[in-house]
């Protein structure tokens, strides 16, 4: 009782957060039971018919599903690799810039798209790559026929990947840059005395110095393999490029919201959550073990 008296303000502070989390985070988890039901909105969870794994077999046998899964993995793997390589190169190059104002200016420019919404950026990209947009202007001036970028499956996938890297690269770049500035300066002085040039210094000091951060960023992004970028793709794609750009999340959205197939949609969602949770657990454990990374 004494303990309760002492601790009750702490419990009280947690009440609003707990209630909201119960409703809006745990509530939907409970709703996942509909993955095993022939869910009818009017009957609700309790009266809908149980169908076991029928929804799963139904979805996995849909002709589009393999393509959707493949798209998801391809798009997110490309994004993952580029999200490490591009910011790394930029950070290394930027680190060689000695004039501070120039460095600041470049950082701001690269970081800017990160803060804008996909509606704004989607609008910008669609304008840029439209049939008589500036990109096609360049294509035409090189003597080729204009390309329908947004209606061509191969190009469109590239645009999805490229524009996401463009939006997000500033973030990882700044994280890496911060790691580079954290490297002990005496190491460089020692290397210079030993006659190592800038290139050698980069190979032997800078890269090993930021390797832990790069590994950490890579490991943490693994948990997102099945998130290929829902909001981005939803705003930029159109039926013509479903084949190359439809990913699990957009597929679930159309399945649930437009065809009202709640059961199958929840089944795909559950499938995705379970795989993501597995990957997150593995990578989190790895990050903890090799880099002693903890979040709380």
């Amino acid at each position, binding site marked *: 009782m004494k303990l309760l008296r002492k601790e009750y303000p702490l419990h009280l502070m947690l009440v609003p957060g707990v209630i909201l989390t119960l409703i809006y985070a745990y509530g939907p988890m409970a709703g996942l039971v509909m993955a095993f039901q022939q869910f009818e909105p009017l009957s609700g969870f309790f009266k809908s018919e149980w169908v076991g794994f029928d929804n799963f077999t139904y979805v996995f046998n849909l002709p589009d599903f393999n393509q959707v899964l493949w798209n998801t993995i391809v798009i997110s793997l490309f994004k993952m690799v580029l999200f490490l390589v591009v910011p790394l190169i930029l950070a290394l190059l930027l680190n060689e810039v000695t004039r501070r104002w120039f460095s600041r200016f470049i950082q701001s420019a690269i970081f800017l798209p990160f*803060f804008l919404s996909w509606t704004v950026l989607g609008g910008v990209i669609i304008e840029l790559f439209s049939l008589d947009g500036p990109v096609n202007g360049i294509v035409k001036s090189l003597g080729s026929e204009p390309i329908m970028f947004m209606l061509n499956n191969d190009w469109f996938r590239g645009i999805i990947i490229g524009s996401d890297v463009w939006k997000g690269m500033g973030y990882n770049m700044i994280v890496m840059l911060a790691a580079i500035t954290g490297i002990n300066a005496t190491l460089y002085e020692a290397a210079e005395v030993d006659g190592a040039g800038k290139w050698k210094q980069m190979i032997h000091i800078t890269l090993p110095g930021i390797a832990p951060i790069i590994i950490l960023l890579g490991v943490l992004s693994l948990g997102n393999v099945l998130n290929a970028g829902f909001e981005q793709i939803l705003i930029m794609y159109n039926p013509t490029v479903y084949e190359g750009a439809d990913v699990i999340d957009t597929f679930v959205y159309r399945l649930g919201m437009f065809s009202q197939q709640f059961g199958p949609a929840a089944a795909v969602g559950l499938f995705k959550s379970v795989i993501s949770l597995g990957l997150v657990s593995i990578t989190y454990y790895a990050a903890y073990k090799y880099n002693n990374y903890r979040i709380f």
Partner: protein
Amino acid sequence: MHKPSLSRRMFIILNTLLLTFVTVVGIVPFVHLLAISLSSNTAAMAGEVKLWPVGFTMDAYMFLGEKVEFFRSLWVSIERVVLGTAVNMFLVFITAFPLARPNSQFKYRTVYVWFFAITMFFGGGLIPTYIVVKNTGIMDSIWALILPGALNVWNMVLMLNFFRTIPRELDEAATIDGAGYWRILWQIYLPVSLPSIATIGLFTIVGHWNAWFDGILYMNSPDKYPLQTYLSTLITAINSQMSSMSPEQLRAMENLSEKTLRTAQIFMGALPIMLVYPFLQKYFVKGMTVGSVKE
């Protein structure tokens, strides 16, 4: 200092050129958008506009001033940012405080931490969340945009980690002076954590301003759309128009304003962030490094 070698100077020149190119790639799309919005509609439609307005006119912006939908959704966005940020920050603050107590002071700490942490890794997904929101009766109201994400666990963890850096002597002294937990929270932790609150608050504001998908999901009538959701309808209408022309889409196209007006609206949707961003950047950078690089 010795004089840099020839290859070093070559590198510096190349590096400067390359980075300038990257910078241009970062900024030019927005310049292009601005140029279209300031051009005459015929020039914009014909695709003559590159980086400089052709047939300069402010017509699109003048017309925007009379566009009811734009201002209505702008108002929804402002409401959402103000209300949403207040709710988010309050919850982050009062939730992080108990969880930052040492186990000796708060016996159930670990239980609560896992209760919240699990939601970061596992969720119900789109459809079940939609049904829950629907069943709680907040569809079509601003609360549907605020409550489901009201407690951002990631921000809470950032705040919690910041609280733990506050010297324990501070609240020990306060406890001896007879202050309870609530008093310690508001009168000691609040003023001390202003930098952290600023960082998380700014991320929250940007998040609320930029969110658009929940508007589509939870608002049944377009006059309740926040600005970014409204903009998304302009863009997706254009996009589906390109591939197929069903009667519904054609009708949507009729309501759709010309190219210059559309770009003007997109630009206005980005403007607030473009304006404040240079001033906020240093906070963001600091907050990010705190959040992602930890031993």
